[in-house]
Every structure is written in structure tokens, then in C-alpha cells.
């Protein structure tokens, strides 16, 4: 008992959240002994279709989606092919509560539960993908040609995956070898001369299997504003090659080796006289040994290596070099994971691993290396037949910032055959990235400087000795502590109601409370009148809201899915400023300022209060013709502080709400041929000033050939 008290006291001093979780863990461990073992990991749901859906990223062990205590969805191969999406951004946009936010050069990052792209971890077969530009992961990098399913897990998942899994996790699962040789060719042509060609081959013979995939994707880009000399999205060509080999040794041991290569070359145009290229090279290699001596044990040894290299150059008209920069990021991650099935209703998953990250780039004086060994454990069990509990936690040690402990608790209770409820509470964090720690950049044109936290003191001292600093705003001693990881507590409460075999509803209420958000501030003034910026922990923000999904199958040939998200994403300090009457605005430059009221605070940039999506599938002539109609609505949102009071308020200019409608028709000619036709953005919606990733109406046609044996 004393130990427990000591622990509680420790927790009380540190974090209320830790108290709750640790006490629940203790409670559950005791509770566990008092219940008879009830077999129940497999059976659930009245819906036969969903019974088959198995998700792996949510618990790192194959779990039936419908019985999972976490808010998660799966996008199946079938749904991907029906939608005719070529890249990951297209398919994710049509999911409830997800939207994409445009980034420079036509990239698109994901927003989940109102959190930015940098807080969602993207996995490829369970291993993290790297290569982010200022935190944004460009979803267009992922071609969907050989994707078997996409798993979306919402809510902090750092208890399994560590850093970045703050808003949630997206896992992309590629095809695995299956018996019988199959060959696929896919080709689609669309507006803007966009071409997408894929070839894939797959076979499993005795104990050896392979899968090969090749894709070429290119486009002439587009220009939404003809009045300037730049294009909105410059022309590009990219290639994806993916190969995997599997080998089974005497049933107990399985080997697999998979590797993926991605190359993208895009024009880089800064003005009519400055042109060049920007290129991305990405490698991912994963070697896995799976040893299962009996039905209870599964051991996995995984060696994962990935490298992301981005290069950019700009040349003058005479061909001489104007500017070039590069970004070379690599990650090596060995992991040993064990799954132990104590009984039918108790599974323990544990893992131990090491993550070694390196970055070499322009504007860095150093070549930093992050080393982070980690360990995690998760216990998944049914104390009683209708109650499933998952408790887990992970510890990440790190050589450059504070170590992190990430607990998580999730439970699902089946109230009756029709209603079930889910609850999850977890800690998520995002470690300071290389840029926030090591950036050492001075703008040659304007003269301001941006310094990473770990190099700020040294660089300021150097500038001081060179006589470039006129005034230091924060004493250098203030900059000597550690920059903290951005962290959050994520809460989800869900209800699932199955009215009958045709109609079901899902409701999820969420809240993410984020602390220590990293931002930049001025730490010193320079003698040239400019400032020196550095990173620091500042903001406390929260996002909360609800997500509602409904499924309706009026007949075998018709399915109607719809979803809705209500979101409030705000900065707690901003709320205080509004409450204290410290915020002012001016209607136009010639009118005097006036004080804003509490209700005038809108929230964070780029967040819509409501988003609605609807998806209708209709099959005709024994599924020989598939029709699909998709709609997506986003309510108004702000992208700039147009009245310069540093807050997004009701007197700022907003991007108007909009709706997009997509239509597709796929026809099966015979067993070997499929053709498809579609229109994206049927009503040709465009907003060239604010929304650069919507190019207007797109027509496309596709052809699909398969030679299966």
C-alpha cells in the first residue's frame, strides 16, 4: 500500500492525469483476478460485413474493427477503387472530420480533430514515414495503387508510437502476396494532362511470395491566377516502386523484406527570371522476422530504415546558380515486439526498440543525431463478457530533450445488442523537431535571423561578438533550459447504435488539451533594425467537438454514408486576452480602434466550425455498373489576421464556406476489363486567393486490366 501512496503522491505533484491512469491501472489489475475467464475476443456485431474488417495499427495486433474501444475507421481496397482516387490526400478528404490544408508547392497536409498535420503520425505498414516540410506531411506522396487498406485511428496514440501520434495515426497497409499469379495495369488520364499509370504483380507459391508495384504519376499543374507570373502548382513527374518478398520457414518463422522508392521532380519557379527544380528521393526498407512457436506467442523483429532527401535549386536566366538548398533526413529503427495471448480474452503486447534519426541540411551548423530507445506494453482484455479494456503505456528516452511517459486507457462496453459505448483517454506528444532545435538561418534580403532553441545561446553570443546585436530581450540564462515536447491529453467518448441491419449510427465526442505548443518569439534586436527569433513553449490550445456518422443500406445495391463534425479549436491564452478586454480591432485604416467582446474570438486559423460529408454508392446490373456520388462541405474559416490584432476575430476576413461534389461511374466490361469515368468538383468551385489546392472541375477516364490466374 505504501508504494501505491508514494506513487499517488508523485503523480499528484506531477500531473493529475497520471493519477487517474495509474489508479485505474492498479484497480484493474486487482479486478482482473476476481473474474472468471470469459472467451470473447472474436465475436461481436450483428453486421456481417464489418465483422471481416481487421485493424492492426490501433493495438499493434490484429483486432476486429467493430469491437475496438478506440475511434477508428478503415478504408478498404474496394472503397479506394470505387472512389477512383490516385493519391492519399484525395481519399482522406472524403472522410468525416478530416480535411487537407494546402502547403507550398501544391503539397497537402492532414487536419485531424482540428490538429495540424505535424501532430498526426503517418505509418507505412506500421513504420513511420518521415520527410516533413515545416511539420507538414504531404499526402500526395502516397500513391494508392497497391494499398490494401488505410487505417485511421483518432486520439493520442503515443502509448504505442511515441512522438507525433498526438492527434492520431494513419496507417497505410500495402498488398501482401496471395496465392495465384495476378497482374494489374491501371491507367487514368485527367484534366491538366494528369497521368497515372500503375503496374502490379503478385503471387504466393508454396512458401515464397512476392509483390511488385510500379507507378508513374505526372501532371502539367495548374494556374488559378493568370495575372501573376507564377503557376499555382508547377508541373511534376513522380515514380513509386514497391517490392516485397515473403518466405515461410516451416510454418513457425516468416521472413519478409519490403522496400519502397519514391522520386518526385517538380519545376521550381520563383519569378520569371528565377527557375529551377525541386526533387524528392525517398527510400523505405523494412525487414521483418515473425516467429510464432505456438498459437500463444508471436515475436516480431523489425529493422526499418528510411531516408528522405529533398533538393531545391533556382537559377538565373543565364544559367548561373542563384540559390540551392537540401534536406537529408534518415531514420533507422530496430524493434522487437512480442504478442502473448494468455487466453482468448487476454492479450499482452510489448515492444522494445531504438530510433536513430539524423538530419543534414542547409541552414544547420551542426549535423544533429537523435537517439531514442523506447519500451511499450499494452494489456488488452475482457474482465467481463461485454467489457473490453486496453491499458498501455510507453516510455521514450531521448538524448536531446526530456524523456516522455505516455499512458493510455481505453474501454468499450456493450450495453446490449444494439448499443455500445467507447471511452479512451491518452497522453500524446510531439518532440521538438530538428528545425526547432538547430535552425540557424539569417535572411539575406531582409536581415532577420531564426535560431533553433539549442543553438540560440551560442549563435547570439557569436553575433554579439560581431557587434550585430543591439539589445537582448530575454537573458541568455532564460534560454538554457530544455525546450519541452508539445503534449496533449486526448479524450474520446463514443456511442454506437445499430438500429437494424440497414441503419447504424456512430457518435464520438472528443477533446484534446494541448500544452507547451512551440512558437517563435523575438529574443534579441539586431543593429540592422531586424530581430532574432527563436522557438519557445508558449501556447495552450484545445480542440473539442463531436463527430457523427451514419450508415444506411436501403438495399443490397444502395449504400448511403454520411458524416458530420462540429469543432471548436481555440487558444486558451487568446480567450483570456478577450476576456480581459485586451483585444482591439479597426474596421478600416481610417477609423479608430474599438474593443472586442468575448464572442468576437473565432479560434485558430484554418479550422471550420462544421464539416459535412456524404457518400452514395449505387450498383446497377448485378454490380456491373457502380455509381458513386460524393459531397463535402466545409464552413467558413480564417487564414489571415486581416486586421492585424494578432487574433482571428469576427472582424477578420474569412474564407467562405464551400461544397464540392464528385461523381464517378465505373463499368465492368468483362472479367479482365474495367473502365471508369468521373468528374471531380462538378460545379467547378474555385477560390484562387485562398484555396490553392482546389483546381476547379476535373474530368477523368480510367482503364483497368487484370490478368489473374
Amino acid at each position, binding site marked *: 500500500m505504501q508504494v501505491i501512496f508514494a506513487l499517488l503522491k508523485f503523480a499528484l505533484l506531477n500531473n493529475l492525469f497520471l493519477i487517474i491512469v495509474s489508479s485505474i491501472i492498479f484497480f484493474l489489475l486487482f479486478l482482473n483476478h476476481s473474474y472468471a475467464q470469459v472467451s470473447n475476443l472474436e465475436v461481436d456485431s450483428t453486421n456481417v460485413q464489418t465483422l471481416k474488417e481487421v485493424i492492426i495499427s490501433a493495438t499493434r495486433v490484429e483486432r476486429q474493427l467493430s469491437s475496438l474501444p478506440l475511434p477508428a475507421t478503415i478504408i478498404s481496397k474496394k472503397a479506394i477503387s470505387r472512389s477512383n482516387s490516385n493519391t492519399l490526400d484525395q481519399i482522406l478528404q472524403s472522410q468525416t472530420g478530416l480535411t487537407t490544408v494546402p502547403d507550398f508547392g501544391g503539397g497537402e497536409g492532414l487536419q485531424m480533430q482540428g490538429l495540424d498535420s505535424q501532430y498526426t503520425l503517418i505509418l507505412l505498414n506500421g513504420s513511420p514515414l518521415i520527410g516533413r516540410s515545416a511539420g507538414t506531411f504531404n499526402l500526395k506522396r502516397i500513391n494508392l495503387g497497391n494499398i490494401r487498406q488505410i487505417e485511421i485511428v483518432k486520439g493520442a496514440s503515443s502509448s504505442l508510437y511515441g512522438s507525433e501520434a498526438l492527434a492520431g495515426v494513419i496507417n497505410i497497409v500495402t498488398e501482401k502476396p496471395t496465392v495465384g499469379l495476378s497482374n494489374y495495369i491501371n491507367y487514368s488520364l485527367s484534366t491538366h494532362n494528369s497521368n497515372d499509370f500503375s503496374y502490379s504483380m503478385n503471387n504466393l507459391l508454396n512458401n515464397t511470395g512476392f509483390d511488385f508495384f510500379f507507378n508513374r504519376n505526372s501532371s502539367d499543374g495548374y494556374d488559378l491566377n493568370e495575372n501573376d507570373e507564377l503557376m499555382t502548382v508547377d508541373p511534376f513527374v513522380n515514380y513509386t516502386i514497391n517490392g516485397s518478398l515473403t518466405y515461410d520457414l516451416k510454418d513457425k518463422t516468416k521472413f519478409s523484406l519490403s522496400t519502397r522508392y519514391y522520386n518526385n521532380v517538380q519545376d521550381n519557379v520563383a519569378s520569371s527570371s528565377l527557375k529551377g527544380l525541386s526533387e524528392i528521393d525517398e527510400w523505405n526498407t523494412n525487414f521483418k522476422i515473425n516467429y510464432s512457436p505456438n498459437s500463444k506467442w508471436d515475436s516480431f523483429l523489425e529493422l526499418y530504415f528510411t531516408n528522405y532527401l529533398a533538393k531545391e535549386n533556382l537559377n538565373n536566366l543565364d544559367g548561373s546558380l542563384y540559390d540551392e538548398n537540401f534536406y537529408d533526413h534518415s531514420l533507422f529503427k530496430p524493434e522487437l515486439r512480442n504478442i502473448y495471448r494468455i487466453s482468448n480474452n487476454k492479450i499482452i503486447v510489448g515492444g522494445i526498440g531504438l530510433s536513430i534519426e539524423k538530419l543534414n541540411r542547409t541552414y544547420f551548423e551542426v549535423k544533429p543525431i537523435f537517439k531514442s530507445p523506447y519500451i511499450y506494453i499494452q494489456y488488452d482484455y475482457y474482465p467481463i463478457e461485454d467489457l473490453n479494456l486496453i491499458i498501455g503505456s510507453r516510455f521514450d528516452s531521448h538524448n536531446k530533450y526530456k524523456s516522455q511517459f505516455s499512458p493510455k486507457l481505453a474501454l468499450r462496453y456493450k450495453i446490449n445488442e444494439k448499443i455500445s459505448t467507447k471511452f479512451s483517454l491518452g497522453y500524446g506528444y510531439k518532440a521538438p523537431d530538428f528545425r526547432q532545435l538547430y535552425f540557424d538561418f539569417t535572411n*539575406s*534580403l*531582409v*536581415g532577420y535571423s531564426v535560431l533553433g532553441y539549442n543553438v540560440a545561446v551560442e549563435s547570439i553570443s557569436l553575433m554579439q561578438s560581431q557587434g550585430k546585436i*543591439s*539589445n537582448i530581450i530575454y537573458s541568455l540564462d532564460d534560454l538554457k533550459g530544455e525546450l519541452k515536447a508539445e503534449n496533449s491529453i486526448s479524450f474520446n467518448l463514443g456511442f454506437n447504435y445499430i438500429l437494424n441491419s440497414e441503419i447504424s449510427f456512430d457518435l464520438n465526442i472528443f477533446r484534446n488539451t494541448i500544452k507547451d505548443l512551440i512558437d517563435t518569439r*523575438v529574443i534579441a*534586436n539586431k*543593429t*540592422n*533594425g*531586424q*530581430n532574432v527569433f527563436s522557438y519557445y513553449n508558449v501556447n495552450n490550445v484545445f480542440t473539442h467537438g463531436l463527430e457523427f456518422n451514419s450508415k444506411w443500406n436501403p438495399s443490397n445495391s444502395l449504400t448511403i454514408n454520411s458524416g458530420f463534425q462540429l469543432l471548436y479549436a481555440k487558444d486558451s491564452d487568446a480567450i483570456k486576452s478577450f476576456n480581459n478586454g*485586451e*483585444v*482591439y*480591432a*479597426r474596421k*478600416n*485604416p*481610417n*477609423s*479608430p*480602434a*474599438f*474593443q472586442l467582446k468575448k464572442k468576437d474570438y473565432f479560434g485558430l486559423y484554418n479550422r471550420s466550425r462544421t464539416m459535412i460529408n456524404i457518400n452514395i454508392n449505387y450498383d446497377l446490373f448485378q454490380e456491373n455498373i457502380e455509381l458513386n456520388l460524393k459531397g463535402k462541405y466545409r464552413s467558413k474559416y480564417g487564414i489571415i489576421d*486581416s*486586421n*492585424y*490584432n*494578432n487574433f482571428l476575430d469576427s472582424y477578420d476576413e474569412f474564407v467562405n464556406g464551400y461544397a464540392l461534389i464528385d461523381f464517378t461511374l465505373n463499368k465492368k466490361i468483362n472479367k479482365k476489363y474495367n473502365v471508369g469515368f468521373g468528374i471531380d468538383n462538378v460545379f467547378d468551385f474555385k477560390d484562387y486567393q485562398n484555396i490553392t489546392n482546389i483546381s476547379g472541375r476535373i474530368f477523368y477516364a480510367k482503364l483497368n486490366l487484370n490478368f489473374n490466374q
Partner: protein
Amino acid sequence: MKTLKLLFLSFLIISLSSCSDDDEPLLDVISNKVTNFHAPQAGGMGQPITGEFAKFSFATGLQSSSSTEWDIGFRGTTIIVNGGTATGTADEPTRNGQGGAYVASGTMASVLDVDTTKFKQDASSALAITTGSGNGWYTYNGQSHVISPTPGKILVFKTHDGLYAKIEILSYYKDSPASPNAFTDPSRYYTFNYIYQPNKGQTSF
């Protein structure tokens, strides 16, 4: 009853003493708007900033060429007061007055009293109106490069001869366009409202 008497007595005393002060009538507070006050600079963009400050006198409401009869000076986004010492940049005028300044939060209508404890003078370490985006009177937008007066910032000044004034800067661009373009609209043209208290010792506007 005793209290009432006391109250009456004090009322009488105050009335009498007020009357005795009225022999010098107060001047009216001056409220005015200045448009397109040009404040050029040379240098910048990583080079040392140079050029004469455009000096302004609240008493005249006009630009001042005098080396003593000025209250505040403008050069680019930098605002100086006639009080304290030079920061050491080129072409700064000599401060020979008792001027000072501070930045108050509020509107012209809400900042009604001068807080004399808040005044700072220019010094070699920092100006009374601190420079840089978000530090003083303006916000710089890194994407559009537009300099915008931060709403809710009222600059309160002590003049060179110890009187008080407050200003609200409205625009940094010529003819104060509704949405300035940093590349086409001429900058360093101040438009501001000011209120000047011409009476010695009066700390309210």
C-alpha cells in the same frame, strides 16, 4: 446630523477654493488628425539605417525643423522622443527636452488619464517606443510585408516642455489605403489622430 454638517462644511470649502483657482482659465484640449506625414529613411534591408528624423511638434501640430522645439521624431517605423539619450544610430537629433513616452492598451476614447509613472525616455539600450514588429506600435506581416498599426495601441507622450499628448496611428501608407500593398503603395507616410493637452500639470485628456 454631525456628518451632514461636516459634509456641508467641506462642500463650502471646496467651492471656495475652486473659485480662487479660476483666475487662469484652462485652454481647450486640442484634437486633430495628421495625414501623410512623411518619415523617409535610407539604408535598411540589412544595412545601417540613416537619414534625418521627421520631427513633429504638438504645440503647432506641424512638422518642426527646430533643433529644440520638437516633441517626437519619425524615421521609417522608428519613433523617438525629445528626451533621454541617442541610441547611437546615424543622424539622430540631440535630445534636449524632457520628453518621454509609453504605449497604452486601449482606444483614444478609453485612455483618458496619463500614468506619469510609466514614462520612459530614449536610451542607448532601447527607445521609449520599442522597435520591431509587435513590440511597439505596429505589426509586420512576413508574407505580405505590410506594416500595420496594431489596433488598441495608444502612444502616450510627454512633450519636450513637459505637457502631455496621445496618438493613435492609423496608417503607414500614403493616403491610407484600405488594404495596402507593400510593393505598390508608398510607405513611411503616417496618418494618425492625436489629442494634445496644452495645460501645464493637467494629466487627463
